[in-house]
C-alpha cells in the first residue's frame, strides 16, 4: 500500500553477500583486461555501490569515488578516498588500499589506510599495516602487522603518498604497483 517504485534506486547489490553474483556493472565487466581504471561519477548520479564479482581478476590500479564491493581478486592498488570499500568473503586483495572506510570479510595482503574506519569482520584476514583513526577487529579475524591510530596520521600518510605518486607518475603496471608487503606475508612481517 505504501510501497512505490523508486526510480533512482540502484539496482546493483551493495552488501558483501552480493558478491556471489557475477559482475554485472560496466566497471566489473571491463575490469579483467584493464590495468588502470578511473571511475568518475556522472553529474546528477546517485551514490551507488559497484560490485566486482568473484570471477574477476584485476591487476593494476583501481581509482574511484563510489562505494565498491570486491568479491574477486585485485593485485596492485585500490584508491577510493571518499568511499567505502568492502572486501567480501570471497575477495582476495594483494594491494595497497586507500579508502574512507574499509570493511574486510575476505583476505587482504598489503597496507590498508582509511580516513574513517577499518573493520575486520569474523574470518576476515589482513597481513599488513593498518592506518586509521578507528579500527575494529572481530573475534575470529586474523591480523598480522601494525595499527596506527594516531590522530592525523592518515593525512600525513596521504601527503607522502602523493609525493611518491608524483615521482613515479607512470608506474601503473602490476609489478610496480604491487606493494613490497604484498609480495609475501613473510616479507610483510619482516619489514615491521
Amino acid at each position, binding site marked *: 500500500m505504501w510501497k512505490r517504485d523508486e526510480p533512482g534506486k540502484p539496482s546493483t547489490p551493495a552488501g558483501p553477500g552480493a558478491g556471489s553474483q557475477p559482475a554485472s556493472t560496466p566497471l566489473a565487466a571491463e575490469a579483467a583486461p584493464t590495468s588502470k581504471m578511473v571511475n568518475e561519477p556522472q553529474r546528477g548520479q546517485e551514490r551507488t555501490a559497484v560490485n566486482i564479482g568473484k570471477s574477476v581478476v584485476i591487476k593494476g590500479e583501481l581509482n574511484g569515488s563510489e562505494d565498491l564491493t570486491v568479491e574477486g581478486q585485485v593485485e596492485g592498488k585500490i584508491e577510493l578516498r571518499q568511499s567505502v570499500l568492502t572486501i567480501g568473503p570471497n575477495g582476495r586483495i594483494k594491494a595497497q588500499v586507500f579508502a574512507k572506510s574499509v570493511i574486510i570479510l575476505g583476505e587482504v595482503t598489503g597496507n590498508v589506510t582509511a580516513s574513517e574506519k577499518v573493520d575486520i569482520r569474523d574470518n576476515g584476514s589482513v597481513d599488513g599495516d593498518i592506518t586509521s583513526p578507528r579500527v575494529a577487529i572481530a573475534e575470529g579475524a586474523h*591480523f598480522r602487522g601494525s595499527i596506527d591510530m594516531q590522530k592525523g596520521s592518515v593525512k600525513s600518510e596521504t601527503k607522502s603518498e602523493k609525493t611518491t605518486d608524483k615521482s613515479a607518475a607512470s608506474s601503473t603496471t602490476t609489478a610496480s604497483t604491487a606493494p613490497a608487503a604484498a609480495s609475501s606475508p613473510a616479507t610483510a612481517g619482516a619489514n615491521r
Partner: protein
Amino acid sequence: MLSDLLRWGGKRPGQPDAPGPGEAAAPRGGEPVVPSKAFPKFLAAIATQPAPPLLLDFGPVIGPNVSFFGEQLGCKLFIEDLFADYDRHARGGTLEALPATIASRFRHAEASVDGVLCWDFFDFLQKPAAQALAKEIVRMVRPGGAVMGFFCTSSVPSAPFTKYEIVDDKSLRHRPHAGIGGARQALQNRDIIKMFDGLVVSDSFLLKNNTREILLKRRS
C-alpha cells in the same frame, strides 16, 4: 497487553536484564575478570610520553584491546604475537631455535618503543629464549618507556596460554588461547632484574592468584 507489560515491569519472562554500566567487568562464561595493579601504572607511564606512543603487544590480536589503545592513547600498535611463534616452533619440535627467531624478529630501531606488553610470555620461555627477548626489549625501549610482564610464582610442567582482554584501565579478562601452551618456568626476581639489565623495576605486585605483575621502566 499493556497491563501485562506493566505487571512484568516492562520485561518479558526469560528476557535478560539490560547490561548495567559495571557489567562489562563481569565474568563471561568462565572467563574471569582479574583486577590489575600494574596495568594502570603502565598506561600512566605511556601517557606521559611526549609524542604519540608506539606500543608492542606480544599477545595475539584482540579487537577490544586494539579499540582500547586507539581510544585511550591514539597510539601506533604493533601486534607481534610471539605466542604464535612459540606455537609454530613447539608444534614443529624446534623450540631450541626460538632464541634465534626472537633475536632476528624485531626490526624496530634502538630506543624507539614507548611500551611493551609482554603479558605472561616469559613464563613459557627457556632461559636462552628469555634472555634473547629481554635483550631485544632493552634495546628497543626508549627512555621513559615501560614494560609490563606477568610472572608465575611456581613452575608448572604444562599449562595453556592465556589471552588478556582489556576490560578497562584496571582489569583484564583472562581468556583461553587456542595455542599449544607449554611448561611454565618460575623466574626469580633477581633473574628478572638481571635479564632486563638497563631497565629498572618500577613496580611489582603479587596478586591473589599468585601472579607477579612487574612493571619495568627505562630511566629518562
